[in-house]
Structures are given as C-alpha cells and as structure tokens.
C-alpha cells in the first residue's frame, strides 16, 4: 500500500511538472533499450519501463544495423561490469565500438537518445567513464542517480553537450522522469 502511494505521488508530481513545461515529453514510442557496459542495471531500467507501461524492445547487445525508424527512441543504460562483459563474451573495446556505431546510426535515424545511469559510484571508474562520455555527448537527455555524480562528472558532460540532466536521489525515482519523457 505504501509503495502504491509513493508511486502515485511520484507520478502525480512528474505529470504536474510535465503539464507546466510542455517540452518535458519529447520522446516517441516504442523505445529500444540497451546496456552500455553490460551491467545488470539494465534489468532494473527494464522493470521501470514495464511498470511505466512504455513499449520497448530490450536488447543488451543490439547492433547499429538493427536500429530502424520504427523505434524513435534509444535508451542507453550505461555503466561497465567486467563480469557482465565477460558473460556477454564482448571486450570493453568491442563494447565501445558497438556504442559508437549505435550512436552514429541513431543520429542518422534522428532518434531521441536518453542516457540513464543508476549504478551510483559502483558504476563509475575508468571503464564506465569511457562508455559514459560518448553516450552523454550524443544524448538528448540524461537521468542519473546522484551517487554517481558526486564529482560533478555528469553535470559537466551535460553542460558540454547542452542537454537536460535530471538528477534523482534513488534508483526507484528514475522511473517517473523516464516515463514522463515519452509523448
């Protein structure tokens, strides 16, 4: 009951701000969801989209050639997991190449790109940051759990890319702004 109440309150708050700012909802449906860095954070964002009733196709390893105009939004769950990369059978270098190719193709298709970082400090560091930088540079919007931005890394990248950055306190608060981004 408490959870339902909290979810309702969050959605009401976000919908309220969406009505106040017409530009809030800008992303088209359905979305393509992928993991950049192969962390399990992907699974949690998948749950958030499902609960928000946003239609999406989930593919942790989707390649550029598999993007097409039928899915106007690309959501990147970014954060490196060496274990996840190993399990997926992909090197960090190959993952970075896949990411850059995806971003290039998304631009050609005029897709909306949203970067989501939910893993906090545990999903920062040299490898994660090498994925985060190109994603932020090519994104239209970013949603980040604050614990991952304690050094202002995302704030700086968002300013450089001139994109909106939504910082949230907890992972459970990512769902509301993410869902609200969709038209």
């Amino acid at each position, binding site marked *: 009951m408490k959870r339902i109440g909290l979810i309702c309150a969050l959605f009401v708050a976000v919908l309220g701000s969406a009505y106040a700012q017409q530009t809030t909802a800008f992303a088209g449906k359905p979305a393509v969801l992928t993991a950049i860095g192969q962390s*399990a*954070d992907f699974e949690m964002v998948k749950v958030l989209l499902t609960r928000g009733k946003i239609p999406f196709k989930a593919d942790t390893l989707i390649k550029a050639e598999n993007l097409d105009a039928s899915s106007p939004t690309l959501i990147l769950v970014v954060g490196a997991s060496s274990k996840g990369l190993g399990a997926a059978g992909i090197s960090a270098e190959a993952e970075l190449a896949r990411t850059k190719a995806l971003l290039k193709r998304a631009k050609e298709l005029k897709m909306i790109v949203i970067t989501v970082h939910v893993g906090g400090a545990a999903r920062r560091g040299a490898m994660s940051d090498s994925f985060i930088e190109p994603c932020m540079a090519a994104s239209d919007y970013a949603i980040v759990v604050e614990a991952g931005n304690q050094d202002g890394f995302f704030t700086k990248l968002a300013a450089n890319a001139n994109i909106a950055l939504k910082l949230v306190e907890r992972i459970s608060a990512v769902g509301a702004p993410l869902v609200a981004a969709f038209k």
Partner: protein
Amino acid sequence: MKRAAIVLLAASLCLGAISAQPSTNPDVHGRYLINHDYRPSSSLTKTGWLSDYYPGLLGTPGDSKVYYFEGKTPGGTLFIGGGTHSNEIAGIMAAVTIIENLKVDTGRVIVVPNLNNSAVSHQDKEPSMPAYTSRGPSWIGLDTPSGRRFFKYGSRATNMAHQGVPDPVGGYVHPDSKEAPLPAWEFRNLNRAYPGRTDSGLTQKIAYSIMILLNQEKVDLAFDYHEADVGGRLANMMVANPKNIDIAAAAVLNVDLDYGLTLKLEPSNMEFRGLSHREWGAGSGAAAFLIETPNPAMAQDATDNADVVNDPTNPLGSRVATHLAGTKAVVDVFNETNPEKSIVFSGLPSYEQLLEKGVGPYLK
C-alpha cells in the same frame, strides 16, 4: 502334542522378548554437532536433517537440521539457507529469526540455518586464507525476552579435521571449471562445491545433499544468506541466477522504494562454477538468489575485536533486516507473477523494527 505346545510357547516368549528389547541402534543424528539453541515458532511442522537427502552425511559433522513450515493452503516452496560461511553471522541469524517467528499461511518454507555445520566447529587461520575470513568472536550473545542467548560464530570453511580428504596440492579446481586453480582451502568452501559429489570430501557431500533437497522438495525460490567485507564490491548486493534476474531486479527496486535500502544487483557468472546461485539455478527448478550484507569483522581493516552485533554503522539488526527485506521483496514479486504458487507468510519482525531494536527482542 504337549511337547509341540511347549516349543511354540517358548518360541513366542523368545520373540516377544526380542521385540521388547530397546533398539541397539542409537540415533546418530547430530552426534558430532554443536546443539544450536534455536527455538522454532509454534508453526513448525517438522524437523529433518540434510542426511535425510543424502544418507552419507548421517552421523558426520556435516549433517544439519532442516526446519519445515507448511501452510494450510498449498502453494510454492521457499528455501532459506544460512551459514554457508559460519563467520557470516547475519545470514545465520536471519535464518534463526525466521525459524523463531514464522507463520506460514500458503505454501511451504524450509530453513537450514547452518548449511555447513562443520564450519561452526573452528576458526582456523590458515596461511593462505585471507584474514577477513577468520576474524570475529567464537560466540555472539543477544539479550532476548527469555534472557541472554548465545549463537555460534565459526569459519568460512569446513573444518580440515572433518573434510576427510586433504586440500589439493596446487590449488582447488572445481571439476567442471575451466578457470585457474583457487587457493587449496577453497576445496572446503561450500560455496565453491555445488552441485557436489559423493566420492569426495565432506564439503562436496554437503553440497550434494542440498542439491537433492532442492530437487526433491521442488523448491521454487532458494536463498543463500551471506556477508561480505564492509565497503567492498559485494556488500549490500543481491546476486541472482540469470534465469531469474528479472525477479531480482524488481525486488531490488521495491526495497529501494519501500525502505530506502540500496542493493546492488549482479547476475551469476556462469563460467565461475560451484557457487550456490549459479548451480542451484542450473541444477534445480529453483529461482536462486544470494544476499550479501556488510560484516564489520570482515572489513579489510577490521581488528579481532570488531563488534559484529552492535557496530554503529552496520549493526546485526540492520544486516538481518536487509536479508529479510530482500527475501520478502523477491517472494512478493514471485507471487505477483505465479499466483498459483504463492508463498504467503507473516510473523517476522519488520525492517523498521529490526533497525530500531536489533535482533534479540524478536527471538524467544
């Protein structure tokens, strides 16, 4: 005729005398074990032993008590294991808290508080074993409504004296692993031994019995409660077999929303063999999970006097609360998607109660 009657009478007297003799086979269950002071709730249906699943454990220090709680309505089966590593005391105490408070309405709950019962018998400090694995007290004391009670704190590994087979020279390699050898003592680490085998050491036999239990009891959800080094990668984490990572992801979000409890999430590494979440999930029908909480005695800079009960940052109450909250969240998500296999229970202290008062007040 008279002689025949006398013979028959004598024979029947002898048979009667034989059947009246007390059994000459004493119950050897738990013969070498510490008699843990666990006081189950009135909802306990029965107790059994791991040796019921693999008789080769009978009378050995690897046998361990199994507690069964059955609801009035049929449903799914939840398995809770503590004490894979006996120095990870919050896992044991979370299982004991369940045993002493649980009321099951629908389905079944099976609890083994000391999966590796041999490991409670020692705190060996072996040269190749990291210091964090063998620090801590021999017992912990908790103030409960019935007075002060004591619970055994042990080692990460099976007692070398019980294993029956020497640690392998050159290191331990899981029979199905293609990875480099682990330190030799890992041969006695239950969480490197699954699915176990009967022609090896005691640790491997314990693992084997647990796999039989999971399959024979048709367990739907299985938890292995652990602890990790404070501030390390594993602390406050839920690990899930890839086949049930979706349930874990939803549960992790729910504990974040409900309690402000942040748990990291990782899938099992399918190449790293022998771990419970990997092998339970692959070798049984159970959705397999492991929860890690931060144990103050396992911090890299911990001293031998680390307070594993009343540490101001990570007290026992908060660690047990994390195990129970994570478990309940998984069960709730499972019930939403599998209503025909629901597991419904009550009676456990709440997350907030455990944070506020600790574990002792919620034991008998």
